[in-house]
Each structure stands twice: as C-alpha cells, then as structure tokens.
C-alpha cells in the first residue's frame, strides 16, 4: 500500500476491516477471467471502448513542432475517463454483495459516472456533494437524480468537494457492512489508489497499442492533467518502464505566486488527507486550505500518493498551468480541431502548447484528452466574456 513513503491507510479503525476485505476482493477479481470479461464487455458495449486515438494535424501545424496525438477519453459514455473506474468498482461491489453505492463529487462528473453505473447495474446510489457545488452544478445534480441517485447535500466545512469526501467517509464508517464507497480518483486509503490506477490503466494500455499501430513507435512524451490524478495515472502507468517522458499538468489557478491555486506538488507539503500520505495544500498548523482552479475537477487540495512518489523520484515531471494558459489552449483545440475539451484537460494541452514547438517534427506528443468540455461551456463563456469586459 506504499509508493515510496506515500500512500498508506490513514482511516479510523472502523474502516480497516472493510479495506482489507476490499483489497482481497479486488485482488481476487483481478485474477478472475469472468470478472474481467464482464468488465471488458461493459467498457466496450456500454461505454464505447476502445476510445479513438486522433491525430491533430492543424494543431500540430499551428504549434509547429512535435506531432500531436489525442487519446480520446472524451468519447466515453458520460464524456470522460471517470466511467472506466465507476463501472469497474460497481462490478466489484456487486461481486462483494454490496447493495448500496456511495460516492462524493465536486463538479459532479464522478457523481454522474457513479450514478450512471448504479442505474445500469440496478444498485442504490447516494452521492455526497457540497451545498455550494450543488448550487454551482445544478444540471449535473439533476442528471444524477434522473438516473435515480440520491444527492446528499453537505453543509459542513466549506460546503465543497473536500467536505463532501469527509461526509462520504463518515457515512461509510456508519454503514460499512453493506455499503461500497466508490472513490473517483487515485486517492484515499490503500487499496484505492492502486485499484483506481489498475482500472484506469486501460487508457495507457490502449494508447501504447494504438500509437504503435499508427506510428510504429511509442510517443516521445505523454502528457495528462493532474487533480487527484486518475487519468494521468491510468495513462502513465503502462509507460513507466519505457523510454518515454511523462508530464503531469497541475492547476496553478491564478498563479503559483498567489494563494489561489491547486498546485499541490509545486506548493504543497507532505501530509495526510482522506486516508493517504501525499502532498497537500495546508496551512502552518496542518489544516487543509481550500484550493482554487477554474477547473472544478482539479480543484482538490491533495493528489494521488503514487504521483507524489513519481515526482520525488523524478520519473514524471509536474508543471503548474494557470487558468489563462488552460483557456488559451482550450480555444486552440476547439478552433483548430473541432474538439471542445474539458477545462481540466486543457491544462495538459497548455503544456503541449509550450512544449511542442521545442520538439522536432519527427517527435510525437501524446495527450490524454480526459474529458469533453460540454459541461464547461458556461464557465468558458463567463471567462471569455469576463476577459472582454475587464
């Protein structure tokens, strides 16, 4: 359960047996061809995998350097990589005989993916969501309810994702016998970071195969955005032993020199949040502070422990990307390739915008296009029009 010094299981004793049980069930399922077959079937027949690999000729020409390829997780059912993990954990929950699913959500994407899975498999589903996020993401709340999920308003703390996660954990503590807690990223106590990574590595596995089919070789560099870090971990993991540069883009918000950012690795200190040891944005007393990013999905004060380890061992480089840099890259992709990426994803694209021109034309940059931007149109519009006004 450790990645170097990071990870672990920092949870109340009440949950420890459940985590042991979960780990055993996961390892058992992983080796079970019937489970894998069912999962593969749902990923292919329900979510539409394998997702496409798209060459971006106009973006490549515009940036003038490395050839840019996009791994299209945005084409998944519900519009992002989140469903890979939700379907897998849902099947695991059924295998363990759990009847009720709980999840936390910030912007609502993991909540929607979980509610989708629960509807598909006929499971009861409760989604914990901060009061403030419920207000900001009214339509996602309605989508979850349409799919039969119960959305539970969280009014503790700052009424956002961190608090929703605390409440979900509390609910799990109180109902640990029959409840399965679906964590949406490579965070939380062991075995979650490992399990979510394994359920997301299909992104990297497919990408490797597709890159070789398309170009005859592995890419020179692979880029992904990092909040909790599940799309990046899923993309990077199969490349860890290859001679491929790996880069994670984290949210620098209004700039790492300000207090309004979510640049956990750039500005955080080691600490424990939501069950594992990693880097955290915290104050001098060890209280967790509210992060900021224009992207609701990167607006998290922690990061998956394996990323912390990959940073410290220098296997992966992590770069901070501001709101403005992300928005510029988002507009480039929309205008030049007809793909509207999620603002989260745009952080990875902003790094590409910096990096591609420095690379040779025969080099290849692969980006994890983790999600589509439909959910963000209002935010983008407010930002674009706000910029015009100011």
């Amino acid at each position, binding site marked *: 359960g450790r990645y170097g010094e990071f990870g*672990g*299981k*920092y*949870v*109340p*004793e*009440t*949950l*420890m*047996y*459940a985590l*042991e049980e979960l780990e055993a069930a996961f390892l058992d399922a992983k080796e079970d061809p019937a489970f894998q077959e069912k999962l593969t079937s749902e990923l292919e027949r329900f979510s539409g995998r394998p997702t496409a690999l798209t060459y971006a000729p106009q973006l490549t020409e515009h940036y003038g350097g490395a050839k840019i390829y996009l791994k299209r997780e945005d084409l998944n059912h519900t519009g992002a990589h989140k469903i890979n993990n939700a379907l897998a954990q849902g099947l695991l929950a059924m295998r363990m005989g759990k009847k009720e699913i709980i999840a936390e959500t910030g912007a609502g994407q993991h909540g929607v993916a979980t509610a989708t899975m629960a509807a598909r498999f006929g499971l009861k589903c409760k989604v914990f969501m901060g009061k403030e996020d419920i207000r900001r993401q009214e339509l996602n709340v309605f989508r979850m309810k349409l799919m039969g999920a119960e959305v539970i308003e969280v009014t*503790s*703390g700052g009424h956002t994702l*961190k608090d929703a996660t*605390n409440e979900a*954990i*509390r609910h799990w*503590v*109180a*109902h*640990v*016998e029959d409840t399965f807690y679906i964590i949406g990223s490579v965070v939380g106590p062991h075995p979650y970071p490992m399990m979510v990574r394994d359920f997301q590595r299909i992104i990297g596995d497919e990408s490797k195969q597709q890159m070789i089919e398309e170009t005859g070789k592995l890419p020179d560099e692979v880029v992904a955005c990092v909040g909790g870090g599940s799309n990046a971990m899923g993309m990077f993991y199969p490349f860890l032993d290859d001679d491929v540069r790996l880069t994670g883009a984290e949210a620098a918000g209004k700039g790492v020199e300000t207090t309004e950012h979510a640049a956990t690795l750039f500005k955080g*200190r*080691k*600490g*424990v*949040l*939501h*069950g594992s*040891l990693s880097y*955290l944005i*915290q104050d*001098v*007393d*060890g*209280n*967790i*502070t509210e992060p900021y990013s224009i992207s609701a999905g990167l607006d998290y004060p922690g990061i998956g422990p394996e990323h912390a380890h990959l940073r410290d061992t220098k296997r992966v480089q992590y770069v901070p990307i501001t709101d403005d840099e992300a928005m510029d890259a988002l507009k480039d992709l929309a205008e030049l390739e007809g793909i509207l990426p999620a603002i989260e994803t745009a952080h990875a694209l902003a790094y590409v915008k910096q990096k591609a021109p420095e690379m040779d034309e025969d080099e290849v940059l692969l980006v994890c296009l983790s999600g589509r931007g439909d959910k963000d149109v209002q935010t983008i519009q407010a930002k674009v029009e706000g910029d015009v006004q100011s």
Partner: protein
Amino acid sequence: MNRLNNEAFTKATKRFVPYMMSSDPSPEVSVDIALTLQEAGVEALEWGVPFSDPLADGPVIQEAGQRALKRGGSLTKALSTMKDARERGLTLPTVLFTYVNPVLSFGFEKLVQEMGEAGFDGLLIPDLPYEESHSYREYCQKHDLSLIPLVAPSSRSRVEKICKDADGFVYYVTSLGVTGTRQEFSETLKAEIETVKSFSRVPVLAGFGISTPEHVSFFQKIADGAIVGSALVRKIGSLEEDLLDPERKHGALNEIKGFVQELISY
C-alpha cells in the same frame, strides 16, 4: 510512568472520561472547563485538537473545532493550554486527541517531546490505525506516553493484535459511525466487549454515542469505563456566550459540573 498507568487509573472501579475541545470557546476558558471536569470527579480527560477535516467526528465536534480554530486553536495551542492547566492544578491523566495531519505538520518527535513538557499521558490519533502506528507506538513507549488504540465492532479478526500492543487503555467504538449521540446500541455489544477485554491487558473504555446517565452506567458495567464526547461538547457549545462573559462564566462552569455529575450519578 504516565498517569494512565498509575494505580488511580488502572485500579479504578469505574472510569468516566470526557472529551473536550481545547480552545473552545477560547484557550483560557477551555482550561477552566478542564479544571471543572476534574472537580466533577472524572477519571481522565481527552484534550481535542481542532482540525479542518475531522472525518472521524460528527457535526457537534466538527463545529466545536471550527469555533476553536476561530479562537486561535491549534496543536501548538493545545500543548500550551495543557501546560497552563497543569500549572493551575490539573492532575488527571490526559490524552491528546488529534488527527494525523496536524501531527505530521508539527513533527512527531517534536510533538512527543512537547507533550511530555506539557504534562500529557496519552495520545489518540483516530486516523492512525494499527498498521500505520508501529513506529509511532515505539517512540511513544520510549517517552512514557500511551498511544491509545481504537477497536470497533467491525475490527473482527483485528482485535487480538490491536489489544496485544495496547497501552493506557483501549478505546472501544460502541457502534459503527462517527462520534455523536444516539439512542440504541447493538445488542451483541456485551459479548463483543467481553472478547476485547479478554485480549487486553489494559482497561477497555467504551465511547461513541454515549449521552445519558443510563448509557454511562450501562457501559461502566459491561466495559471498564465510558467516554463521553459529543454530549459534553454540545453542552459547552450551548453555554458559549456565558462562558465568554466574565460575569457569567462561573455559573456556566457550574452548570457543566452539574451536567457531568448527573452523567456519572447512576
């Protein structure tokens, strides 16, 4: 030898241990409350550290933490106020109750040293389970501090190993869930606590959800004592204004004293 291992605690026939939040409603007044609890006749004290994300606690204690943070509460403050309390005559065994992140932020070795200087006897970190606690426990033992473990109904096969290494007391979580008050307890509780006691060399105290004199009496019979947190913290919260008013503070402290004496009256 810390006070949890003194005979006054180890040989007590009944044990009542209240939890309170340091710096709630203010650093100074929380010391007054600690002294009041001692007067009321409790056997030991849990001294809570306010934290932004207390995920093992219910809303009552989380709100107390928010109040304490606003009044300047922190781990540093929890240490200095305990020093004050000792200077003002607190002789009870005391346990620092804090989450792991403030501990890491402060530095664990530094914390153990300053806890010794402040007069603490035990340390309870609810999100530091057995598997993560080995080096912490060894270091505590070396510095005569008891690292208090939790055991829960869901611990199952884990009970034995946890109890084997326990020091000070075992905190038995009476029902699943976070801290808070509730009406019902699991029927199999008595048998479960017997099992825990059979593995433990130190007292087994029951906590979580204990809020009435009847509860306290029930757990003092089937366990080695009872811990009350949210019920007391709610009482303190309801008296916040009085406690912060020099004119009315004395009356409020008396009301707390009466509340605790009522709890242990059965």
